[in-house]
């Protein structure tokens, strides 16, 4: 037997170490479609609970939208279940081309290439485009998939302090000797919900002859007046060179991602990006449903407008209730607790109140910055938001944190 006890013990020991650090991720089973109200089996084996979901990336509430589900069925009937091929052999259908064209138009980019996920898009784009004579200059808090992609690339890389334009300028000056420069940022940062100042970044990139790549996974479909994203919000649609984004969050929530941008860069991805060349095509039902999503949000801003209203209403409610939330304008609302155990304990108590939220702590967020991350959706109704705020008020009162600021919470619980 090749899997000996000795080998097994190596892995068992690693799992125990993860548990000892309090980083073990428990299984949670959703026994209903993804929505504002879901049925959950948690802990594993327990009876089912109906809870309100405040931790999904279902920003536009499209994950189970009847028109999207219908389009997926139609895609299944018209183009089959799977392609059994990568894109460039025999895995590209007319609907793949149609989705790419619609995404380009929606984002205001020259061309688009679909990937199995945005994780794959981020893994592939750098090594396909850049080489050892180039440099990548990245915000320190970019998503892990961008970090992985940058590490797979032979270009030199450097980082700048989170959203610190003075520091970015310094790094751009430092790397003027390189063939090309690419600045990399998230549009909306997933843990803090803050918006990268793309207007300032575009100006700096123009000044120092640098390309700008923005991961819009937590922005596409709802940030900006018509939901185009962070570049629309800051009025710099023409200033962003590359967008990577996902169909797995606001844009339907199934899977798939893309690189969208300057046509030469997209073409190089088509020729060289390894996750594109060596991974299967996006399945026809998902492609057809994603086309429907782009059509829905291109034709109406109703859903992003509702999400904006929900965001404003919820943020005000939480502040009034005395919770210490990180200020902002996105549907990612971090409830700052600073202490990991407090974040975990409060999330558990929120679940008992019928609200499904998760505590986040180091290394997912910086040390001493533990929080519960609330994510809002256009699927939430006002009564859902009221119930969530009331549950936070009740649980916050139990732990004596209402009305307390950072230093007071740290004084009480440590960090």
């Amino acid at each position, binding site marked *: 037997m090749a899997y000996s006890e000795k080998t097994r013990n190596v892995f068992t020991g690693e799992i125990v170490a993860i548990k000892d650090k309090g980083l073990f991720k428990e299984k949670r089973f959703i026994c209903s479609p993804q929505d504002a109200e879901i049925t959950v089996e948690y802990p594993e084996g327990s009876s089912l609970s109906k809870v309100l979901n405040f931790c999904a990336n279902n920003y536009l509430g499209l994950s189970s939208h009847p028109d999207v589900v219908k389009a997926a069925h139609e895609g299944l009937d018209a183009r089959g279940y799977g392609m059994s091929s990568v894109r460039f052999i025999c895995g590209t259908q007319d609907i793949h081309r149609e989705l790419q064209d619609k995404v380009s138009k929606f984002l205001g980019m020259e061309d688009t290439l679909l990937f199995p996920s945005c994780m794959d898009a981020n893994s592939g784009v750098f090594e396909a485009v850049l080489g050892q004579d180039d440099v990548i200059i*990245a915000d*320190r808090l970019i998503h892990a998939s961008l970090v992985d992609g940058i590490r797979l690339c032979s270009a030199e*890389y*450097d*980082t700048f302090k989170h959203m610190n334009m003075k520091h970015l300028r310094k790094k751009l000056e430092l790397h003027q000797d390189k063939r090309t420069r690419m600045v990399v940022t998230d549009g909306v940062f997933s843990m803090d919900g803050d918006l990268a100042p793309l207007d300032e970044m575009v100006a700096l990139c123009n000044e120092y002859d640098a390309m700008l790549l923005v991961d819009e996974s937590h922005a596409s479909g709802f940030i900006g007046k018509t939901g185009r994203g962070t570049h629309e919000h800051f009025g710099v649609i023409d200033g962003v060179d590359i967008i990577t984004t996902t169909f797995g969050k606001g844009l339907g929530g199934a899977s798939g991602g893309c690189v969208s941008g300057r046509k030469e860069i997209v073409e190089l991805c088509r020729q060289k990006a390894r996750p594109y060349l060596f991974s299967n095509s996006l399945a026809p039902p998902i492609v057809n449903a994603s086309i429907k999503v782009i059509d829905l949000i291109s034709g109406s801003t109703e859903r992003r407008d509702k999400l904006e209203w929900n965001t404003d209403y919820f943020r005000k409610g939480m502040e009034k209730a005395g919770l210490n939330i990180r200020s902002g304008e996105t549907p990612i609302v971090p409830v700052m607790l600073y202490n990991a155990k407090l974040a975990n304990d409060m999330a558990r108590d929120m679940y008992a109140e019928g609200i499904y939220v998760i505590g986040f702590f*180091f*290394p997912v967020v910086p040390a001493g910055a533990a929080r519960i991350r609330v994510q809002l959706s256009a699927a939430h109704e006002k009564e859902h938001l009221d119930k969530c705020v009331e549950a936070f008020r009740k649980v916050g009162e139990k732990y004596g944190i209402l009305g307390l600021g950072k230093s007071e919470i740290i004084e009480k619980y440590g960090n």
Partner: protein
Amino acid sequence: MDKMKEVVLEYVIDEYIDEDDDEEVGVDSPLISSGIVDSFSMVSLKRFLENKYKVRLSDEEATPEAFDTVTSICSLVQKHLG
């Protein structure tokens, strides 16, 4: 060695601490294990050391442990300088 610690500490503060952050960092403050410097942003510190002291630090040497304090970083650089 004391001069080197001073130079490296100054770089660490300038490169990793925000201007409005009241965090106090000294030569023995944990950098990696405290999250001030992560494995991704460590690259600029390594580049600074290599350029400043004309040494080559291999990936095997530039571990999170070796880079955890200004003191341990300087010990590593000093080893190369002989």
